[in-house]
Structures are given as C-alpha cells and as structure tokens.
C-alpha cells in the first residue's frame, strides 16, 4: 500500500496538465478511477483512521494517538529501527558494488558470458520463502552444510542464525546473494547503452582500463545506479519475508526489523497497533526515499 501511494503521485500530476488537450470525455476515467479508489484510496484512508482506534475484528473504539504512543514504547522498536536501517543500507550498498562489478565482468569479452549471466540471475527467480528455508538448513550450527564444511578445514563455525549479533548479517548476506542478479541486469543494460565512441576515444588517448572504468563507465551508468539504489533501498527498508523465514526476528528480538515487529503485533491481534506501525513505516520510507531520489535525480552528469 505504501509503495503504491508513492508511485501514484506522478501520473496524477501529469493527468492535470494533459486535461485540456485530451478530446475524450472524463467518463472514460471512471473504470480506472473506481478500481483505484476501491483498491488503494479507501484502504489507505481507512488505515489512517484505524491506526487511531483499538479494534478487535468485532468492534473498535477511538483512542486517539494511543497506538502511536504504544508503538513507540515497544521495547525493541529502537533496535528494530536500527536493524532496518542497517539492513536497507548495507544490502543496497553491497548490491550496487557487487552488481556493478559483476556487470563490468559480464559485459567484457569472456567465455560463456550468456551462461554466467543466467547463473547470476537464477536466485532472483526463487521465492524468498524457499531461499530462506534452504539457508536455515545450510546455516544450522552443527548439522548445516556451511559449518560441516568449515569443520573439515578445522574451523569451528559460528551459529549463523543463533548468535544474536550475527543473525542479522547472515540474513543480509543471503539477501544480497538473492538480489544481486537484478542489480547486475540493470547495470548491464546501463553499461550496454554507453556509446562505444567514448571508449574508442579514451583508448586513442591512451587511457588504461581502470581509467576507462572510473571516468566513463561509472559516471555514465549513473541512471542505472540510481535505479538500483532506489529499488534495493525501498526493498531493504520494508524487508520482511527473508527475516521472517530465516530467524523470525530472533534469536529473541535481535534481528527484528520494523516490518517484523509490525507483523508480530498483527499476529497477536493488536490490529490497531499494527496499523499504526504500518503508518510509521510508510512515513519512514517516505522520509528516507523522497529526499534521496530527488537529490539523486537532480544531479547532472559531468564527464
């Protein structure tokens, strides 16, 4: 719901300017308008209202900002917020760095390039739940493939998902492994669209491979970078499925993110409280993303 609301601001603005020139009657808007109102507008407005009530499924009563007060008093909310930011920023950063590196590799002349591109992309096709369940068993502290392998070379592997400080980072690694394929594909498209004239000119001027990367590839794939950062940061900030399947926010509360805290409130039947949490998450993502995307899209590219 929160993403949808963000996406929809733009077309609305465009529609207003186009109005005078379009010769069709406004009634043509009705089908789309009705669907939009029923599926998005009404629930969004309703959620703002229900966030102010304490409701069971059977009745509700208005308690003002009580849910927000309660939500911010959640003992693990601060840690959840910190974890959310750590998760969003580090997965986003790793996907940019690794995605760009892989894209450079996979656009150069190497054997089996098409196959390697496919291999990088495969994890994207698997569902989060499936990936989560597989890695839970791979990361089992005593019987998991990772620690069993480490044992054969004499390393006593940690409890990847059961050590409180490590659990979140284990999930981050898996999220990057699963999501880097998308970043790579976007970067490949970005790099492929750079005109080869620039590289030829650089070669004639005697630029090294490294110089070509830093002076041409990196600045000119900026639109791709912006896209990757935007997508992966939004995805990271509202991440839920992988955390939930791999750790359930645990051990204890140590890998809780805002979305998993909200889900637990919902599960326990605190519907008003979880709705308030979703409003908070919506505002949080908007607060981070709106300034960031405005800033990233405004900067001009200089070579």
């Amino acid at each position, binding site marked *: 719901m929160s993403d949808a609301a963000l996406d929809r601001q733009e077309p609305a603005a465009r529609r207003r300017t186009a109005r005078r020139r379009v010769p069709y009657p406004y009634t043509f808007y009705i089908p789309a308008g009705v669907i939009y109102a029923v599926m998005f507008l009404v629930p969004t407005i309703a959620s703002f209202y229900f966030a102010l009530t304490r409701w069971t499924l059977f009745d509700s009563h208005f308690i003002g900002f009580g849910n927000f007060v309660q939500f911010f008093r959640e003992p693990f909310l601060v840690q959840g917020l910190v974890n959310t930011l750590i998760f969003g920023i580090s997965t986003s950063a790793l996907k940019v760095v690794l995605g760009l590196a892989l894209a450079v590799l996979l656009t150069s002349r190497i054997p089996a390039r098409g196959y390697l591109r496919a291999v990088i992309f495969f994890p994207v096709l698997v569902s989060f739940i499936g990936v989560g369940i597989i890695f839970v068993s791979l990361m089992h502290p*005593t019987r998991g493939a990772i620690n069993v392998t480490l044992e054969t070379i004499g390393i006593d592997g940690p409890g990847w998902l059961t050590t409180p400080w490590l659990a979140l980072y284990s999930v981050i690694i898996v999220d990057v492994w699963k999501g880097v394929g998308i970043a790579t594909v976007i970067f490949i498209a970005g790099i492929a669209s750079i005109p080869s004239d620039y590289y030829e000119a650089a070669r004639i001027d005697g630029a090294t491979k490294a110089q070509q990367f830093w002076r041409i590839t990196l600045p000119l794939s900026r639109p791709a970078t912006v896209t990757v950062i935007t997508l992966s940061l939004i995805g990271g900030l509202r991440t839920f499925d992988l955390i939930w399947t791999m750790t359930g926010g645990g051990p*204890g509360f140590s890998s809780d993110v805002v979305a998993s805290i909200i889900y637990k409130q*919902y*599960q326990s039947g605190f519907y008003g409280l979880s709705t308030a949490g979703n409003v908070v998450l919506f505002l949080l993502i908007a607060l981070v993303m709106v300034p960031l995307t405005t800033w990233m899209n405004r900067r001009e590219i200089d070579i």
Partner: protein
Amino acid sequence: MEEEKTDMKTTFRRTGLALVALSAAAPAWAQDPVELTFLVDNGPPSVAQAEALAAAYTELNPHVTFDIELRVGSIDGDNLVKTRLATEEMADIFLYNSGSLFQALAPTRTIVELTDQPFLDVVSDSFEAVVTADGGVYGVPIGPGFAGGIMYNRAIYDELGLEVPLTWDDFMANNAAIDEAGYVPIAQTYGDTWSAQLLVLGDYFNVEADSPGFAERYTNNEAKFATDPAALRSFERLEEAYEAGYFNEDFGAATYDDGIRMIATGEAAHYPILSLAIDPIAEQYPDAVPDIGFFAQPGDDPDKNGLTIWLPNALYVPQASENIDEAVDFLAFVASQAGCQAQIDAGQVSGPYLIEGCQLPEDVPQATRDLVPYFNDSDLNLPALEFLSPVKGPALPQLTVEVGSGIRSAAEAAAIYDEDVKKAAQQLGLPNW
C-alpha cells in the same frame, strides 16, 4: 445478554438469524440430509479426533454428513478463526483453544451459548470454567487433557539409578549426574520458539503454591512477574538451567522434531514440553514409547509437588451457522461417553479425558499413565495461567528464548513481559489497566 444490547451493529441480525434457525429447523431436521462444515486445525491429533467423531456420529445419524476443513494452526490460525467469525463465514462447527484465546473471540456475540444444555452435566467443571464467558458456557472438549512438565527418558534414569525429582534442587542434581554420564541433561529447541516457554508455563503450579491467588491479582493488574518472587522464579529456573550449561549444543536452532528425536533415542534425558509430545514419539519411534515418562516440573517444596495441566481444545458453534440445531446435537455427542470412546478407539490416548465416566484403556503409553494420578486428585493439578486468566502476553516465546540463550537476564525479561501483558490486557479492554 446485557452486553448484546450495547453492540448495535450486528447483534440484532445474528440473534434474529439464530431464532429463525431454532424455530424453523426443529421439527423437520430428523429426515432432511444435512452436511455440516467442520473447521479444525491441521495438527495430526486434531484431524484424527475430528475424523473419528464425524464418522461415529454419521454412523448413528446417517442423514448428517461432515465436510472437514483444515486450517493452519498456532497464531496464524487465530487470525483466520477471528476473521471468519467476524465476517460470519465460520463453519457450522469449529475447533479452537479454550482459555485466554477463547476469550478473545468475543464469545457472547459470536458463539452459540450452551449453558442450559443437559449434555454438559458430564463435562468436568474444570473444563467448563475455561469455556465460560460472562457466566455462560460455550464449548465442549475435544481430545484429551494434557500437561506441561518434564518428559524424561526412563532408560537413562534406570541406567544412572536416578529418581523422579520432587524439588528443583533434586532436578538439577539429576542433571549434573546425567551430564557426567555424557547425555544431554535438558533438550531445548528454540528453532520452534513456542517450545522455549515450557519451563516458565509448566512452572505455574509452583507459582500458585508459593503465591496463592496470583492469577486473580495478575488479571486485576495487582501482581507482576517482575515483582512477585514466586512468578519471577519461573524465569530464574530457565536462567539457571542455561547457566549450568545443561542444554544440547544446537539448542538455538533445534526444532520440536529434534527434541522428539533426542528424548526418544536417549540422546537427551529431559525435555520440558507438553505431554502431547508422546503422540509423535509413538508415531516415529514406537519402540521408545515404554522408555518415555513424564513428571511435573518440580518446585522448591517437596510437599507441594503438582502438575500444571492444559485443558483440551473445544468445539464451538458460531451464531451465524445455518444449522445450529444439528451442530449442537453433534456437540452433545462429542461430550458423551460414546464420543469419548470414538476418540480413544482412534488412538487418541495422550492424556485423560474430561468427560465423566470416560476411562482410558489399560495399555496407554507410560507417559500418559504418569499423568493420571495428578489428574485424579484436584490438589495435585492446576491449570496453566492462560486458563486462569484471559491475559497472555504475545512476546513470551521470544523472551524465554532470550533468557534460555543467556541474551537477557530473568529479571529483565520478566519486567519486559509485564509490559507486554499490559498491552494484551488493554486490547481485551479489561478494567484496571
């Protein structure tokens, strides 16, 4: 009835529907074929019980057939049941927990009251108490009663010459001997977080023994886990067990299935769990069944040793059902000796039944036999706190995982749990919170 007047939106329609169903259906139902929908959770015991009861009932009443629907269990199932009740799409009969979870269903507005039905005479009072809301009774028991305590491996006890402990100190002394002998003293399985709660929940008999009336004061916001020494002791026992290093190495990742394996194969000597665990053991490790016993979680005083029991789930009929008469008649069968016998014949013998006159056969598993003396003497058992109070904090699984993993101290966890409880009580709209 008082309460129904205050809720304007839907009650008139629901009561109206119920009255129509009562008056219209009564004379004709005996002949017309009826199919009753029946919603149960997908746990193997629930499915087996529901199927056995439905088949036995259809045999006696051929015009009634059942469509058994399965739903997910645990906390996701809770939301499904609440949603279907609230939208009046509930099956004619549904299986759900008794106790605090039942209270959250707003029973006076959603469930058909059974208070004056004669078939309740044979249902034990302790069960009726946990399906009672505002003085009315709303459900009948399905399946046997069970307990929270310590499942133990009798073969290891025999080998080491140990005796069933009556105090926590004896229990820890046994653990030391077991550790010495190279077995895992206590199996813990935090991969399934719910199982982490057992050392705290199963300790409730001891809490009440040392702090009589705790449940009532707790419900009235007068007693707290952090400040009542007897209640705090439950958390401290978990902490002590962790600090002594008595858990299996992979306790953080092990699952309930691993726990079943450890106790059945003699890898571990103790597994604090619900007595229901004997069912999967009987299924997966039938040879191990005679080796498995069960004892109450010991407290500090050997003279006050008793069992914390769990009352069975219940069957309910929603007010929105279109076949209330037939559904209630089925409930009458479930609460009868014949219904009880049908479940026993289907192998559901993990604990005693709460129907008067319903006897378990002689050849039940040892772990079940260990429960019977506690169940038979009302001084030796007490329902768990979630049956004596409508309030249960939802974060207890995570908090007990933290205490049992040494992430947080018992005192701190108890204080956080008190806050969690407060949230749940406010949601229920209890007075004094």
